[in-house]
């Protein structure tokens, strides 16, 4: 690969295909990665559409297939899609809240060829978990995780981390070990979509993050060889941006429920880009040719300080959505970078969240992800 740009001959391949089967979800997590205006996107792809997408993407080299949402279990054709994906040679991953995950379904999915199930948790204890989820689901999640283990799947538990639960990651890790999880992901909230609306309420302090990271390291040692522990830091506290999506149009291809093709789940909000739809275009054209997937591909689009920075090959200028959300222009350097002229915006967000944590004895206002709030927020 030519480091200074891509030629059509050696374009990257969409190794990771994320199929967002639906935006519907029984949970109301206030950090959801779905678009804030999801309630307006009602048009969903048919089974035949999805099968066509799976085939086309596989031909292009896609090999990891994630079924996500919303809650993908709400799709009655999930088993059909898993079966097709497995036959095509994908490694098939189900990313679920476990809501609706019955023993019959775990069995049917296994028979369809599902390789792996990841269950998300909102906290390590029932009260906070169910408050954040907006519904009673904690005990079902724990029971489901045990069943998933029993059926011989690799068990990955994903705990989303925010201010109210970051001090209790030890509880999460002990619980995961007791269930027999193979891997635990402690994934700090990334501030897009709903999480961006709730940032003052969710962002932990720097002290909290440092302490949690240290505890995570202790547990990595403690469970070495038994359970992998991943700690994903919140990038607001970094000096350099994350290599978001490993580069725009470089590895990840997301298909939204209505067939819109995106370089990441959050990209839909970016202005000035027309994202193609799999109903009108082949996956091959979308990935290789479409203006949207080429807009921030490679390095030629960059401005300073990225343009001449030796670290651009490592971090690809960070995240386009974060650049847009914070600076108003997606072509700017991700302001998480301390070299960005807009880095003060990140520092201000941190200060604002800290002030909010100190001011509100009731912990402050929270906007749950539901249809009512979606309709309201989009106006």
């Amino acid at each position: 690969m030519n480091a200074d740009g891509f030629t059509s001959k050696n374009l990257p391949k969409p190794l990771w295909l994320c199929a967002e089967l639906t935006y519907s979800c029984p949970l109301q997590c206030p950090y959801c990665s779905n678009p804030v205006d999801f309630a307006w996107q009602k048009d969903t792809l048919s089974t035949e559409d999805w099968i066509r997408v799976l085939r086309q993407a596989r031909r292009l080299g896609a090999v990891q297939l994630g079924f996500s949402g919303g809650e993908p279990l709400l799709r009655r054709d999930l088993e059909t899609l898993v079966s097709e994906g497995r036959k095509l040679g994908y490694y098939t991953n189900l990313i679920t809240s476990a809501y609706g995950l019955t023993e019959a379904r775990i069995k049917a999915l296994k028979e369809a060829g599902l390789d792996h199930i990841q269950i998300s948790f909102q906290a390590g204890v029932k009260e906070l978990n169910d408050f954040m989820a907006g519904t009673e689901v904690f005990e079902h999640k724990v029971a489901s995780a045990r069943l998933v283990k029993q059926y011989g799947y690799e068990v990955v538990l994903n705990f989303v981390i925010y201010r109210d639960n970051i001090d209790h990651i030890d509880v999460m890790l002990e619980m995961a070990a007791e269930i027999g999880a193979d891997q635990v992901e402690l994934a700090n909230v990334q501030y897009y979509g709903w999480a961006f609306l709730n940032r003052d309420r969710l962002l932990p302090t720097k002290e909290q993050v440092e302490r949690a990271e240290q505890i995570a390291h202790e547990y990595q040692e403690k469970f070495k060889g038994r359970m992998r522990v991943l700690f994903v830091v919140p990038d607001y506290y970094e000096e350099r941006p994350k290599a978001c999506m490993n580069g725009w149009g470089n590895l990840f291809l997301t298909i939204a429920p209505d067939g819109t093709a995106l370089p990441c789940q959050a990209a839909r909000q970016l202005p000035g880009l027309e994202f193609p739809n799999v109903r009108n275009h082949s996956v091959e054209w979308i990935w290789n040719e479409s203006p949207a997937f080429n807009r921030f591909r490679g390095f030629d689009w960059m401005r300073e300080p990225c343009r001449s920075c030796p670290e651009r090959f490592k971090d690809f200028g960070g995240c386009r959505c974060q650049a847009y959300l914070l600076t108003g222009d997606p072509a700017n350097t991700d302001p998480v970078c301390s070299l960005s002229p807009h880095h003060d915006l990140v520092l201000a967000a941190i200060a604002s969240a800290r002030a909010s944590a100190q001011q509100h004895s009731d912990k402050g206002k929270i906007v749950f992800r539901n249809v009512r709030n979606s309709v309201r927020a989009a106006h």
Partner: protein
Amino acid sequence: MAQLDDASVLALSPKFRLQWEEAQNCYVLLYAEGMIKLNKSASEILTLVDGKRSLGAIIEELKSRFPGAPIESDVKEFIQVAHERGWVHVKEPS
């Protein structure tokens, strides 16, 4: 965990899937949400890990495919690493 020696019968861990990828023109090991691209020698070795052959048998097979090449220590070293990473395990004698 069973000791790793020439008599050890090796199998791929059920958590990993070895697969030829046409688009990448190489073998890959797939696992939950991830992928390891294998180089030519790693592919030669791992495609012989079938739950039936012992480490010794794998070495013999490769010696016959690449006569004269000093491969024994390379294969042992690779299997050691693959074992540590959980890609392969030693089948208990039944």
